[in-house]
């Protein structure tokens, strides 16, 4: 019970801080920019647009890389050895302290994904269609090049409409996004404990930059590499669309298993390390 309370309180500290404010601002601007063509299209044809556009916005390479860089920045407070944590550790003990940090990473990951999702809905607000149907506008935009004249970099994948409802797709994206962001956070925490903060940032960046080779490789190789680069799985909206005859994203069950297993292994290694680590407190603000 005490651990759960600490996780909750610690999550609050990890969510309400200046780094998260910067992330919020970044997503506000990015969300507005990437969704604007859809908003214009909706206004012009005078037809409401589905609230579920976030999964498609995530398929835009620039947006996705911005999002992951933001996640890495928000997690750059590792290894959580600011002086204020000294007062936490002496009260909680090592085990509870580290469980609090890991729980906080998980909650923060969910909030990061939620912030990004909400900021793709807000710019559309007056024209949003609140139903579990994809609606005429998205279907028209996906089957024609109606968005092209608004310089949209968001591609709508028609095949997904028959596989998922908006609610299902949004739930899948939130789950995969949260687990991947948590994996990045845990990986950064792991590197910061076993190596240092620079290695942590490099590890997080390596995972994010892993997108480049996957998306730029020939489709014959892409579908193989995509099984090992979780940051690309945020493009769940493409899962039903073949590319050169290949469904290059791995199935959902594989993504979830890989992420849960990865987080579990990192958590075990972090718990092991913290049992004997020397705490070197630093003056960085939380």
């Amino acid at each position: 019970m005490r651990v759960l309370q600490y996780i909750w309180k610690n999550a609050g500290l990890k969510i309400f801080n200046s780094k998260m404010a910067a992330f919020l601002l970044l997503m506000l601007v990015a969300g507005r920019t990437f969704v604007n063509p859809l908003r214009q299209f909706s206004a012009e044809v005078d037809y409401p647009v589905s609230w579920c556009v976030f999964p498609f916005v995530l398929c835009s390479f620039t947006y996705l890389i911005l999002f992951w860089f933001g996640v890495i920045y928000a997690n750059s407070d590792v290894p959580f050895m600011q002086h204020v944590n000294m007062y936490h550790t002496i009260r909680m003990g090592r085990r509870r302290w580290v469980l609090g940090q890991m729980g906080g990473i998980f909650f923060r990951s969910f909030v990061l994904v939620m912030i990004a999702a909400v900021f793709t809905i807000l710019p559309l607000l007056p024209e949003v269609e609140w139903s579990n149907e994809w609606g005429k506008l998205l279907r028209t935009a996906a089957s024609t090049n109606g968005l092209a004249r608004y310089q949209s970099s968001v591609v709508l994948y028609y095949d997904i409409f028959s596989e998922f409802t908006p609610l299902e797709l949004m739930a899948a994206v939130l789950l995969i996004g949260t687990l991947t962001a948590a994996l990045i956070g845990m990986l950064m925490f792991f590197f910061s404990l076993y190596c240092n903060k620079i290695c942590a940032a490099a590890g997080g960046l390596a995972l994010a930059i892993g997108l480049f080779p996957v998306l730029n490789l020939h489709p014959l190789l892409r579908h193989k590499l995509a099984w090992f680069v979780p940051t690309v799985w945020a493009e769940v909206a493409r899962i039903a669309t073949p590319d050169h005859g290949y469904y290059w994203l791995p199935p959902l069950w594989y993504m979830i298993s890989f992420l849960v297993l990865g987080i579990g292994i990192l958590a075990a290694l972090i718990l092991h390390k913290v049992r004997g680590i020397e705490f070197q407190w630093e003056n960085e603000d939380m």
Partner: protein
Amino acid sequence: MDRNKGDYYIEVSHVSKRFGNTQVLKDVSLNCESGKIYGLVGHNGSGKTVLFKILCGFLSCEEGTVKVNGKVMGKEKDMLTEAGIIIEDPGFLRTWSGYHNLEFLYTLRNKKNKAYLYAVMEKVGLNPGMIRPVEKYSLGMRQRLAIAQAIMEDPGILILDEPMNGLDKKGVEEIRALLLKMKEENKLIILASHNREDIQILCDEVYEMEEGRLRKLCG
């Protein structure tokens, strides 16, 4: 030696610590028990803070052992959770008020009592109603808040590294009186200070740390 329930005793035996090529602590031994104040003097960099961090469980020692009530730190006990501490800079959330910082830390041990926290803040000379964020506190006020943080859970052990830092004359006298009262309440207090007067007035036993070696001066 007769020991009652609630008494604490710390046994530091032949502790050595090294950072890279620098030997910071050399064969340090020290025994402390409840109801006394132990003073530690020494130059900057002599190893006082490192010893404090080892006592708390933040650092481990390469040689020797630290036992608290017979439990070996690092093996049977990972952190000195029954201690109130001030080590290095007071670590508070800068944009929060003093009261909210204390409240947050107080609730980590499942405790909640606004009136009590107000009383603790008043005890160390702070106005609990002040909404000013900690980043706008003077050095002395921050130090008072650190003292409040250390004593608010009524810990059995106090480890205080330069607790009078930045305090004015009145503040020093108030904190001295507070520490003497806590000694009367059977607390085990270990105090590092550069101020000889503090050491003379407060401490039952005084030790000097010099180039990593500890020697008893008096008591």
